[in-house]
């Protein structure tokens, strides 16, 4: 997570860059969440009543069934839940949440259409969770730069040169990736 501070119209705005494998939910202070996407997906959730919003940035949809792979922070299935839960702890209510989904480009012709699979997952996840998808800009072969104001729920999506997109690769993770058990 990179954080910088801009002064816009006389007010200080924190710019938070949400990197692959990360989730960030707004603090309620003036902030702008940003990210650059190729085949990855960023989902922006916003609860207009609580005025709380957040963004995630995931590489892949979910592990193949039976693969034995843990659905960790490389995967949308985990990062979507993390985003929803963090929204809820800040007062968000799941049934009120609205979603914007961006990214999912197929950056390299001839290779597996990871971007399409990611976008398909995001749509399905939101449908299954009963979260309204109000804006989507996915697919194609171009990278995108996203800006999201988590207080106002406004997004801006711009197409940029493919070379500007970060290389999509799994997040390096420690051996103990999750699932720690503590019996009381």
């Amino acid at each position, binding site marked *: 997570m990179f954080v910088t501070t801009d002064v816009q119209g006389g007010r200080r705005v924190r710019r938070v860059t949400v990197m692959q494998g990360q989730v960030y939910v707004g603090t309620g202070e003036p902030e702008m969440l940003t990210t650059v996407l190729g085949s990855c997906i960023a989902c922006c959730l916003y609860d207009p009543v609580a005025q709380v919003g957040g963004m995630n940035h995931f590489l892949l949809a979910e592990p193949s069934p039976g693969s034995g792979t843990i*659905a960790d922070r490389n995967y949308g299935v985990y990062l979507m839940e993390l985003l929803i839960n963090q929204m809820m702890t800040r007062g968000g209510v799941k049934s009120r949440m609205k979603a914007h989904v961006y990214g999912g480009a197929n950056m390299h012709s001839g290779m597996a259409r990871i971007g399409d699979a990611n976008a398909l997952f995001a749509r399905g996840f939101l449908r299954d969770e009963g979260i309204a998808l109000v804006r989507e800009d996915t697919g194609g072969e171009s990278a995108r730069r996203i800006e999201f104001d988590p207080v106002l729920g406004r997004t801006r999506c711009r197409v940029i040169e493919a070379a500007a997109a970060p290389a999509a690769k799994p997040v390096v993770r420690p051996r103990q990736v999750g699932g720690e058990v503590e019996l009381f």
Partner: protein
Amino acid sequence: MSDTIHVLTVDDSASMRALLRAALTSRGYMVTQAEDGVAALEWLSDSAEEIDVIVTDINMPRMDGFGLIEALRSQVRFRDCPILVLSTESSDEKKARARSAGATGWIVKPFDADKLDTALRRVTH
């Protein structure tokens, strides 16, 4: 108790329920699923089936995991039933609250199916 362990999982995420179901059924568990604390209590109230262990999320609409644990521990029928929390949260404060409510243990998401399996077998035997 029969050899098959009957697990009630409580999670508002349909995707997480699907992951849990796949992980548990492939390891021989019988799985019943509820989408939140209220649905879980309703099912438990209406069903005559024995539940060997309950695995519950914390952040859920209508009734969260803490409320569910407290409601279950207030019933004689579930006073000794193992209840494991499965949550993306891992703060000591939340763990202490779960423990105080009567939880048996805490597992951090993303879950490792093998570790979950080990924990389930340990608390049910």
